[in-house]
Structure formats: C-alpha cells, structure tokens
C-alpha cells in the first residue's frame, strides 16, 4: 500500500509539471548529456514544426538549427551540452520550422541539469517566440520613419524662408538678424536630428546595405582630418588621426559606414571636451589576448569572450585591428555608463551642461560596428576623459 502511496505522490508531481509545461508559452526541451531529447512540450511543435513525440529519442542538433544575423551559433548545442554553464542565444536569431513555414525569430536559453549527487545529467532548453516583440518594434520604427519623412517638408520651407530673410541683411536691425540666424541654426539642428532618426530606423530595419570591401583603416584618416580640423581648432582642441599607424590595417568592411562610425565618435569627442583638450585616433594591429585584457578592464569580458571564441577555433591567436578614439573630455559618469549605447540616452553631465545632442550617435556606432563583425568597448572617467576601443578581425 505504501508503494502505491509513493507512486501517487510522484505521479502527482509529474502530472503537475506536465500541466505547467503544457500551458506555458515557451517551448521546453530536455535532453540528456549527449543531446538526445528526453522530453518536449507542445509549444515546441510550433517552433520546430515537429511533434514532441517525434522529437523524443532524436538528437537535438539534427532536429533544429538556429541562424543569427550577426553571430555564428553553429556551436550553440555543442557548448550547451558540455554542461559547464548556462548559455543564451545572442540577439537577432531565428529558427526555421520544418514543413516550409516561415522563419521565426526566437530567444533561447540552455541550462545544465544535475542529479542529486551533483553529476551533470543533461540540459533544459527554453525557446521563446519573439514574433510579437519584433512586430511591435518594427511598427515603432515604421512610425518613426513615417513621421520623420513628414517633418522634412515643413523644415525645408522654414529653412528656405529664413534664408531669404537672412539675405536681406542690409535691411535688418542687427538684433533681428541675430534672432533669425539663431532660428536658422535651430532648423539645421532639427534637420540633422531627422536625418539621424531616419538613419537609426534604417539600420534597425536592416535596410542599410553594407559593402564588403578590403579597406585599410588608415585611409580614413585624411577624410576625418579634413572634416574636423576646423571644428577642433575653433573649439580649442588638438586633433590627430592615425598619426603613428605605420603598418597597414586591413579589414573587410564598408568605407562610408566606417567613416560614419568615426565621425560620430570624433564629433562626440570634440563637443564633449574641455578647452585645450585633445582628441586622438590611434589604430594598430593586436591580437585576441590583448583584446581580452582590454575587455576585462572595461567590463565587457563576457561579451568579448563569446565574440572571440568564434575566431579561435581556426587560429590560436587571432590577429585583430584595434582602433582607439581617445579624448580628455567630460567623460561618462559611472552610473550612466551601462546605458551609453542606448538610443536617445544622454549622460547626465552633458545634459546639465546644455550641450546639444540627439542621443543617437552611439547607438548608430554600435549598430554599424557589429554589422561589420566588430565590437566596441570603452572606458571613461568623469571629468578625465573617455577612450573607445573598436576591434575588427584583421585580414592580414
């Protein structure tokens, strides 16, 4: 009788868990240590196109594949099944269900399981359908894009009208001319904001095309010097770019987008600087070991570790290009640092000083760098300065 009593308790526990797994919106798959599927809940059929009963007993790697926009995740299952740590798929990944249905954007976590003795017994995979989130986000960007385009027409009219008035300088009292000048500058800023908003929406929607040319990063130097020399001087800042880079820094990328990246960083470095300050761009070859050291120092250790792992399978030490954009400016307060790459986010100290900005530059920079298969890190101290580190795989 006691045996039956125990069975009922166990049965009850299993039934409760089965009900839970059947009613949640995530797909849950449990495998043993080699990846053989032991259990799968009903939602997994929606994501994989395969019935749970047909999944059981098969190897998880043969049953599903993830594909990601900016990362190589072909070793996701292999890594998870080692049982060393919990893993998460990066952003912008998807799964293609069998049976010809469209790709589904997903998030996935893998957590190792241990028996009461502490031995590794398998992995539980949790998959989440991100379609609704992606749609909501896309609607946001579509709206932003629509509004930005609509705003352009009145801006164009304002600018033209103001330009006409400013042209009549001889007939205006100096004060009036000054006010009109200020208004004109405001519309220029407005126009710039709209341009950046549209840029962001385009990047977010993947509508920007990135070329894949071999470029020498040092070639960007002269363009930047030409663009920023005057601005730097008028702000009493010394500016130098790639002054000491003597060896070629070859990477696969898009020259215009790389210029966008550096332009944004240099503009920030100049505007968020102090009188008699300095802005220096340096570029040199390095290797993954040094990159890891910088990452550890800047708090990006985990992210960069994952990034570098994808190169180290073929070479022991991967050659990388390291670009530094360093300034002796206002720096980013420690409490604001975690959010600095967020769209529209502006650090407290620059907002307080009334320095104008859209808060979009760094999110654009990060987006482009990652699209070009690179990564960006930074270290900063309030009132001392900031250094951004951008790394790309080197092709020399």
């Amino acid at each position: 009788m006691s045996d039956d009593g125990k069975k009922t308790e166990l049965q009850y526990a299993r039934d409760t868990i089965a009900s839970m797994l059947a009613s949640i919106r995530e797909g849950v798959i449990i495998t043993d240590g080699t990846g053989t599927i032991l259990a799968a809940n009903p939602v997994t059929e929606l994501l994989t196109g395969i019935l749970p009963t047909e999944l059981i007993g098969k190897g998880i790697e043969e049953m599903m594949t993830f594909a990601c926009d900016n990362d190589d995740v072909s070793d996701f299952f292999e890594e998870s099944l080692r049982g060393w740590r919990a893993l998460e798929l990066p952003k912008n990944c998807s799964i293609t269900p069998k049976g010809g249905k469209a790709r589904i954007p997903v998030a996935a976590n893998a957590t190792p399981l241990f028996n009461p003795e502490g031995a590794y017994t398998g992995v539980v995979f949790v998959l989440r359908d991100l379609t609704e989130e992606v749609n909501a986000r896309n609607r946001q960007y579509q709206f932003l894009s629509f509004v930005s385009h609509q705003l352009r027409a009145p801006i164009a009219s304002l600018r033209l009208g103001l330009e006409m008035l400013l042209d009549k300088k001889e007939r205006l009292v100096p004060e009036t001319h000054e006010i009109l000048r200020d208004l004109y500058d405001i519309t220029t800023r407005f126009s710039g904001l709209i341009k950046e908003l549209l840029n962001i929406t385009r990047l977010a929607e993947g509508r920007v095309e990135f070329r894949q040319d071999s470029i020498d990063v040092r070639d960007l130097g002269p363009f930047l010097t030409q663009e920023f020399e005057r601005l730097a001087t008028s702000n009493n800042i010394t500016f130098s770019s790639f002054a000491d880079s003597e060896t070629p820094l070859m990477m696969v990328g898009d020259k215009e987008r790389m210029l966008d990246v550096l332009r944004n960083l240099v503009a920030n470095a100049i505007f968020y600087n102090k009188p008699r300050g300095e802005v220096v761009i340096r570029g040199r070859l390095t290797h993954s070991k040094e990159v890891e050291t910088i990452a550890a120092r800047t708090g990006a250790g985990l992210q960069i570790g994952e990034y570098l792992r994808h190169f180290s399978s073929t070479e022991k030490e991967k050659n990388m290009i390291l670009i530094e954009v360093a300034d002796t400016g206002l720096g980013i307060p420690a409490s604001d640092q975690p959010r600095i790459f967020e769209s529209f986010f502006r650090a407290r100290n620059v907002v307080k000083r009334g320095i104008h900005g859209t808060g979009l530059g760094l999110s654009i920079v990060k987006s482009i760098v990652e699209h070009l298969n690179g990564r960006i890190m930074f270290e900063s101290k309030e009132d001392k300065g900031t250094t951004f580190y951008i790394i790309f795989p080197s092709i020399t």
Partner: protein
Amino acid sequence: MASPHLLLVEDDKFISRAYKDGLEREGFDVDTAFDGVEAMEKIRASSPNLVLLDLILPEKDGFAVLEEVRMDESLKHVPIIILSNLGQESDIEKGRSLGALDYLIKADVSMKDVIEKVKFHLAKERVGH
C-alpha cells in the same frame, strides 16, 4: 549669352517661390511646374538647360517624369537634378538609375547649396561632361 533657362518642378507653392526667387537673383531664368504632367509639357515645349525635380508630385510623380524623359530620344539629354525630401538609399539609387544627375534633400540643403549644384551641372553640360 542668354541666361540659362531652368525648370523648377515643385508642388509646394511656398518652396517653389523661394527657390525661384533665389535662382532668379543669381541670374537664371526660371519657369515653374506644379505637377508631373505640367512638368512633361514644359520640358517638351521649352527644352530647359536644367530641371530641378521634386519626387512627390500630384498627377504624375518625379520617378515617372524621369522615366518618360529617359525613354524619349528627343528629351533624354535634358539634365535633371532631383530636389526632394525622400531620402532613402533605395530612392536615391532609383533616381540615379533613371538618369538623374544629382540628388539633393530639401531639408538638408541651403539655397546656396542648390545654386552651387545648378552652376556645377550647367558647367559640366557646357564642357560636354
């Protein structure tokens, strides 16, 4: 030498007047059209030295005008600069592939920029590219 004859195709009356004023003060002779159909009529009738063309137009849009001009042997030599607020790379690509010489975004350029571009492209035309 006769002053260059420009055709400005722009449906917004205020913007049209502003560009016309600015260009006339630079010594150009400027005619205006407010929609795509009128634009085609005037291009055919007066063979302008250069056309400034907006893309969003009533009756017939700027892309359609570009196509029609390109298809017509007697008109395809007419230089056209796009002056629009549409600014996506796909629009710019489309405009250039339909034969536009340049693409200016109204909200971003000043009257001086427009005048400079007009002078630049007129000079190029005279030299024969």
